[in-house]
């Protein structure tokens, strides 16, 4: 006789939570590895390329950091709406709009002196992302429109806007017919030290501290958490939902815009379609990173690093093992799924009884 029972847990320790989440991450990663192996890849090669090399080899680690920074900054932003019970998936589009705004500044203020130029471009990019976040913020706050749909659709709108620019007015005549823009002026490019963009890294770390304070110590953070934990009580207490929705989505948009403009002026230097794109789907990876961090700002530091490594490794696998285009998205999806299913094991206990 074999019996499986699902029992509710009433007291959950931090240790248990940590264990379950770590295990769920490992399970997700293993599932992805198995998928790769079923494609005929070598198990050892997959693990080494996916996770070990991106974290241990110095040259790969530089690339890992390059991905971790935008992922982390966007995750920090996404924590705000998630904590307030608003499920935005719009970081990708907000990032793309940030890129457009930063590039536009660079092309129109070509004569501006560095380092002001960099600051101006970053501010413009941040503002662009903020605007793109205000749209779902207003719709959610005023009319309570479903934010998942709006943010998702705005991502595609932002992609189309990018496509319009790179195929149309911004297309460079010198790019051998490729739909690429002109490189942005030198004075707008962020310097790097030994392949690592130290300024970007510092911005990321500082933002982690700031967002940690915002969530835990400020009036805004308190109001956000109140809405996330009991919206009716928060509303009855007179906390404005419009304010919370608007600020959460605007700030998260602003951070995505900042991440996008940093990627543009530090890494890519020009806009392009698909595999040349500045956003590279990192706006979606940031969702995984935010949840992996359990919506804790400080925990975004390790989770963004880990996902940076995985994105880096995933792209390597795609190139080296000749995998299909969507392989990194598949990896993101599998990991997010296993982290979310971990919630079940936090709240419930499985008891297996084997007896006569």
């Amino acid at each position, binding site marked *: 006789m074999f019996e499986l029972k699902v029992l509710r847990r009433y007291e959950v320790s931090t240790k248990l939570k940590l264990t379950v989440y770590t295990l769920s991450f490992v399970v997700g990663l293993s599932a992805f590895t198995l998928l790769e192996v079923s494609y005929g890849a070598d198990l050892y090669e997959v693990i080494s390329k996916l996770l070990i090399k991106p974290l241990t080899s110095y040259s790969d680690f530089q690339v890992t950091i390059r991905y971790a920074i935008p992922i982390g900054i966007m995750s920090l932003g996404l924590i705000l709406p998630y904590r307030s019970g608003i499920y935005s998936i719009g970081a990708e589009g907000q990032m793309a709009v940030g890129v457009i705004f930063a590039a536009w500044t660079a092309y129109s203020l070509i004569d501006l002196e560095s380092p002001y130029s960099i600051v101006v471009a970053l501010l413009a990019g941040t503002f662009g992302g903020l605007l793109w976040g205000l749209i779902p913020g207003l719709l959610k706050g005023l009319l309570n429109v479903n934010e998942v749909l709006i943010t998702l659709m705005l991502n595609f709108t932002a992609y189309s806007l990018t496509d319009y620019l790179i195929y149309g007015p911004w297309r460079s005549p010198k790019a051998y017919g490729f739909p690429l823009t002109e490189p942005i002026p030198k004075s707008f490019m962020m310097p790097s030290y030994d392949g690592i963009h130290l300024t970007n890294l510092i911005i990321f770390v500082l933002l982690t501290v700031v967002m940690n304070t915002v969530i835990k110590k*400020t009036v805004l953070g308190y109001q956000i958490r109140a809405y996330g934990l009991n919206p009716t009580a928060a509303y009855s207490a007179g906390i404005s939902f419009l304010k919370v929705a608007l600020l959460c989505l605007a700030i998260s948009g602003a951070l995505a815009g900042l991440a996008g403009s940093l990627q543009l002026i530090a890494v890519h230097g020009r806009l392009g379609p698909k595999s040349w794109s500045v956003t590279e789907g990192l706006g979606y990876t940031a969702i995984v990173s935010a949840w992996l961090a359990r919506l804790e700002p400080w925990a975004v530091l390790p989770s963004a690093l880990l996902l940076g490594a995985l994105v880096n490794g995933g792209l390597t696998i795609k190139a080296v093992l000749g995998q299909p285009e969507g392989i990194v998205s598949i990896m993101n999806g599998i990991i997010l799924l296993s982290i979310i299913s971990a919630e079940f094991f936090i709240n419930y206990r499985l008891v297996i009884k084997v007896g006569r």
Partner: protein
Amino acid sequence: MEVNQTYFSLNTTNSNHDYVLSVRGVSKFFGSITALKEVDLDVRKKEIHVLLGENGAGKTTLVNILYGIYRPDSGVINVFGKDVRIGSPRDAISYGIVLVQQHPMLIDKMTVAENLSISFRKLGYFKSPKIIKELIREYSSRYGISVDVDALVSNLSFSEKQEVELIRALLLDVKLLILDEPTTMLTSYERRKLFSVLRGLIDEGRSVLLITHKVVEALEISDWITVLRRGEVVASRPKNAYSVDELVKLVVGESIRAEPIVSEDFSPGNSVRRPEVLSVKDLTVVNDAGGIAVRGVSLDINSGEVVGIAGVSGNGQKELSEALAGLRKVKGGKILICGLDVTNRGPGDRVRAGFAYIPEERLRYGVIGEMNVAENFMLKNHKSFSKYGLILEKDVVESVEEGIKAFNIVTRGPSEKVKALSGGNIQKLIVARELRSNPKVILAHNPTLGLDLKSAVLVRELLIKARSNGSGILLISEDLDEVLTLSDRVVVMYRGSIVYETSRTTASRDVLERAMLGLVNV
């Protein structure tokens, strides 16, 4: 049965088979808190056994243990003469124990028949809806319950939902029915109906364990009463072996007046004309189903005055209070707070105008269970605890600790999660928070519903104190005695309208009761 053997411990005691349930020495600890200490409880066949005690006495903990939600830390549970381990509600049901919780656990968006189908495992998964409906009708008519099997659960009243739960228990062939505070939301008519259904169950040879904190109710319905105080059984005897006074003393632990204490400066009819703080003009409000719930209600409340709204619940009180609190749109009429028109504005504008709200559904509207005591304490005034947008934790904690002391809130401290507090302490926390800012208007909706005697008295006294401090109070309560004791003016609400109005000094209980049933037209 062989499988179930594994659940049974080896020392099967040879206990009396007349006992349906026999609990011996059950203890339960939550951290350093002792919730239950060496509790014994025996429920006999064909008995209505009342478990009586204040909020926080451990009644619900014991029920949760009997229903397999908590595990006891020590002790033995014996069902029909066999020691059992109840690991889940499913185990409990397999032993014939069914719990009807305080708040019905039904799926709102489904019909009665659909809700009950879930419990029809024994019939197999592919029974036709027709047969299921027939069976429900058969059961409900047998026990004198009238329920529309095709009605959506969201359209049912509280007592109808409870009846659906009772039918479910019967479909599961309940041997021991446990009811956790079943009467808190019932009118006296509905309560009598429930009790007659319970009597019917007993006649069939089933047993009932009823949990309550109401002494009068215990004496009314029970055969046997077990009194629980601070996690310990302090008495267990047949009903007739208690006197009322003795029972009250056993429950509370010290002698306390059953009536709320009225402070000395509480002098109704104080004829000094004070400014109007709340003015409701010709208010019309629609309920969820689209029907008119409040029709043309007008009310004026002055500073330093309590206006009580009496009435049987379901006559528009809920919609009226939600509309006043800004949680429900108003169809017609006006609401003014201190002269400011707030009619269709949100709660925020009301809070700023000096409006305080003690809601009926306190877990839903009043507190955030997942947040701690301090965070809940500052829910309304968190901006006053901040500087440059940063929350001044020290100030909050200081203020909360003061509040905990002043309002006698039992908690492990400011950082305990509110969901861990008992109902009475949650209510005290809400009252402490709402009164903190010296509000101009207080809307209190059933402020002592479900509270134990001590907490209820304290809450009432606090309202009286707020009145002396100049707050205008609108008290909506199903408890007529409470309305009569606290109010300067009493109005009666019936079918959404105010049908009778009187001052406290001229109020007659008889006339009010008749008005509540719609028998007076003034």
